[in-house]
């Protein structure tokens, strides 16, 4: 049925504007973008248009949520148009507004709008550092497209509509990671960024394949893609079928939400500009997998074996990624692995059946991870500013080699001064240090984000992570221990990062001359910081404060509301504090100096090297998957296609046959000997005939008379013989 409950009161009719508003912003920037850029106020215009579009989606989300709550959480479905109708398959564009999708909508559009505003300031500087100002509008077009696609994903009423959004955000991820497609992270001309984009797309594709097979089985066994119909049919279906569907969907989740074994694209995705990392790879797109599992809760609860596999996958990923994060030097890579680890937490949570805890962590993680990424971007830009300031002040290819510019340098450890500006890595933490004095605002918001991530009370991360740990401790001890260790490592590497970046002395002149970011960037940071502090209020584990839990009850059938458990919370907090103290011992007490080796390396040796090299997983994939594939492809292209097909078969068989038919067959036999001969022969015969018959006309009367006599004789003879 198409026309669902279209509430006469309420703003449900605005549902399509979730998608249309960003699309309108996209179109305006697409059509007028270049014209904007010719005006002096152009960049502001582009950014404001995009931010307003995203903001409009946020306003619509708020209105929809308020209408929903006025309806006591009753699911509202708003039909837009038909899409495919073949036989029994009926797909249409219907928006589903229920408590689960409303949470997602608010997070996406809210955090998204803040990131749009931030991106105005960030991209303004980034395009100048990369010398391509004209590319500015393209960024915002892609960002708005992403918001639109993500809205389709979360507000869809069927698995296929979800999949459309799923693919769409994959596409936007590709476009945005490869935004500087001709460069690499340091600004040199390279395949590096475009390879990262392709890697993201291809690895996601593998996940999508799993999702699609799950979808096909779903339609074949259950007869529909629409959520309510699927859930209803699932109860009577064979468990094997549901198991297959759920496990294949897990493959899709592993791809999109960067779980083992398909997480490898996310660290490479840091090649994109930082707002991209914040929006797509921290706050929203990667959470699509968690949303999918939560949405399919009714399917998963039917097959506990699948749930356990999900939870296990999440827990292993959380632990694995956390270990790698300890050994990373790039500020964004640390956050990337941290994201993978936190996604593991969420996936483990929903695998265990703690959907509320998972969604809670999703929301709080969106706040503080976006905050952390954006702040990291601010740090990177600050260092870049310092670097360019130096380059312009002292002249490029400075002849003043290693001149002491800073006031706080010690004689022995002269800061490093790069010869060429383009190869300076502004994201390397080994080049930073002492940033809390040069970029104070960034320092404070970063600190808040880090504390929230580490799970320190009373920041938001504590409450959400604690709820997951609590649920695990009650039902799944193994997972509980894995997640606890992961939480310990989380606090450790965040501490390490804070000490390395913001404390100590600058290890590079550029860091010494870093400048604070402008207001357009720092204000969204502060908003996100506030949310990171207060976000815990969404679902405190105390009676009367289970807001999120109650809200989600409308969608999920059962919600287990857990109350505060002091031992679990205590262990978690103690571990976090211990981890931070350990990091202080290693990195904070005697700050790292320029050129010095990471002290952990000295202690752990080859283990640290393994961590730094991400456990060599990428190399493993390359050897096991990529290289054979390339070899086969090379073989097919070179030998089969080119040498065999093109060179031999085409030239000899096809062209040869054709030539034979043309030259020998048709030309010689048919044409020359056949037709020409016939035509020429005809002419020859005619000629001979004419030559012969002409001789009758010889001008002699006697011969003419003879012919008359001949005729007479013949006729008379004929008459006689008749």
């Amino acid at each position, binding site marked *: 049925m198409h026309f669902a409950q279209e509430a006469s009161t309420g703003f449900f009719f605005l549902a399509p504007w979730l998608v249309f508003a960003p699309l309108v912003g996209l179109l305006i920037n697409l059509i007028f973008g270049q014209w904007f850029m010719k005006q002096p106020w152009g960049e502001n215009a582009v950014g404001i248009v995009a931010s307003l579009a995203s903001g409009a989606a946020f306003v619509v989300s708020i209105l929809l949520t308020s209408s929903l709550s006025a309806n006591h959480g009753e699911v509202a479905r708003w039909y837009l148009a038909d899409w495919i109708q073949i036989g029994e398959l009926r797909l249409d564009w219907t928006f589903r507004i229920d408590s689960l999708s409303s949470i997602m909508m608010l997070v996406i559009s809210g955090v998204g709008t803040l990131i749009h505003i931030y991106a105005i300031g960030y991209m303004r500087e980034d395009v100048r550092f990369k010398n391509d100002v004209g590319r500015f509008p393209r960024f915002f077009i892609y960002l708005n497209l992403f918001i639109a696609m993500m809205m389709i994903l979360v507000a869809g009423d069927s698995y296929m509509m979800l999949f459309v959004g799923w693919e769409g955000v994959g596409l936007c991820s590709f476009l945005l990671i490869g935004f500087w497609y001709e460069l690499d992270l340091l600004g040199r001309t390279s395949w590096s960024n475009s390879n990262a984009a392709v890697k993201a797309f291809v690895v996601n594709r593998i996940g999508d394949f799993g999702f699609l097979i799950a979808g096909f089985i779903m339609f074949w066994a259950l007869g529909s893609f629409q959520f309510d119909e699927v859930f209803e049919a699932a109860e009577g279906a064979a468990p094997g079928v549901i198991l297959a569907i759920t496990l294949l969907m897990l493959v899709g989740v592993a791809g999109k939400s960067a779980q083992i074994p398909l997480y490898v694209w996310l660290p490479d995705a840091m090649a994109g500009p930082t707002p991209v990392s914040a929006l797509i790879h921290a706050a929203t797109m990667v959470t699509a997998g968690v949303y999918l599992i939560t949405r399919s809760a009714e399917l998963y609860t039917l097959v506990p074996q699948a749930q356990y596999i999900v939870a296990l996958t999440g827990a292993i990923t959380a632990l694995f990624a956390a270990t790698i994060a300890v050994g990373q030097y790039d500020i964004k890579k640390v956050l990337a692995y941290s994201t993978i680890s936190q996604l593991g937490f969420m996936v483990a949570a929903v695998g265990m059946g703690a959907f509320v805890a998972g969604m809670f962590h999703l929301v709080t993680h969106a706040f503080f991870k976006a905050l952390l990424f954006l702040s990291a971007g601010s740090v990177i830009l600050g260092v870049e500013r310092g670097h360019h300031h130096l380059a312009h002040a002292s002249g490029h290819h400075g002849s003043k080699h290693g001149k002491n510019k800073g006031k706080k340098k010690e004689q022995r450890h002269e800061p490093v001064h790069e010869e060429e500006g383009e190869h300076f890595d502004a994201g390397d933490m080994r080049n930073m240090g002492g940033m809390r004095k040069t970029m104070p605002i960034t320092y404070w918001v970063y600190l808040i984000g880090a504390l929230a991530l580490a799970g320190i009370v009373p920041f938001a991360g504590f409450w959400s992570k604690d709820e997951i740990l609590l649920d695990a401790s009650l039902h799944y001890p193994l997972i509980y221990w894995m997640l606890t260790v992961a939480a310990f490592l989380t606090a450790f590497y965040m501490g390490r990062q804070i000490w390395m970046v913001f404390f100590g002395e600058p290890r590079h002149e550029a860091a010494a001359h870093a400048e604070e970011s402008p207001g357009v960037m720092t204000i969204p940071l502060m908003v996100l910081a506030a949310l990171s502090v207060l976000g815990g209020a969404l679902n405190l584990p105390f009676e009367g404060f289970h807001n999120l839990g109650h809200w989600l009850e409308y969608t999920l059938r059962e919600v287990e509301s857990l109350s505060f458990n002091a031992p679990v919370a205590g262990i978690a907090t103690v571990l976090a504090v211990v981890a931070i103290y350990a990091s202080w011992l290693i990195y904070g007490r005697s700050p790292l100096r320029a050129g010095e080796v990471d002290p952990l390396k000295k202690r752990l040796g080859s283990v640290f090297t393994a961590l730094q090299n991400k456990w060599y997983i990428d190399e493993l994939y390359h050897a096991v998957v990529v290289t054979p594939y390339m070899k086969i492809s090379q073989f097919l292209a070179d030998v089969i296609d080119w040498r065999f097909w093109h060179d031999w078969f085409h030239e000899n068989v096809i062209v040869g046959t054709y030539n034979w038919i043309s030259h020998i067959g048709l030309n010689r036999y048919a044409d020359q000997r056949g037709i020409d001969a016939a035509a020429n022969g005809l002419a020859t015969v005619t000629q001979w005939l004419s030559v012969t018959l002409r001789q009758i*006309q*010889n*001008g*002699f*009367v*006697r011969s003419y*008379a*003879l012919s008359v*006599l001949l005729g007479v004789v013949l006729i008379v003879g004929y008459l006689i013989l008749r």
Partner: protein
Amino acid sequence: MIPVNYYIILSAILFTIGVVGVLIRRNALIIFMSIELMLNAANLAFVAFSSVIRSFSGQIFVFFVIAVAAAEVAVGLALIVEIFKSKRSIDVDQLSSMKG
């Protein structure tokens, strides 16, 4: 009591001789004379038949044939004289002006 067929056969023989004369001789006058012989043979046949069927029609026809033959000879000889004036010969083979 001669069957008229004999007269007709005689007429045919004379006619044939006339035909041969037309074809063989190169002298235009001899050819003309052969034509007259042919006409004469035809006249003989007419008269023979006329006597068999006892009607005057054959004879009258012969009368006209003779008259026409006279006219024809007059004109024909005039033509031959003319041709002789230009060609200086009455050999019919000389009358051909076709080349090749």
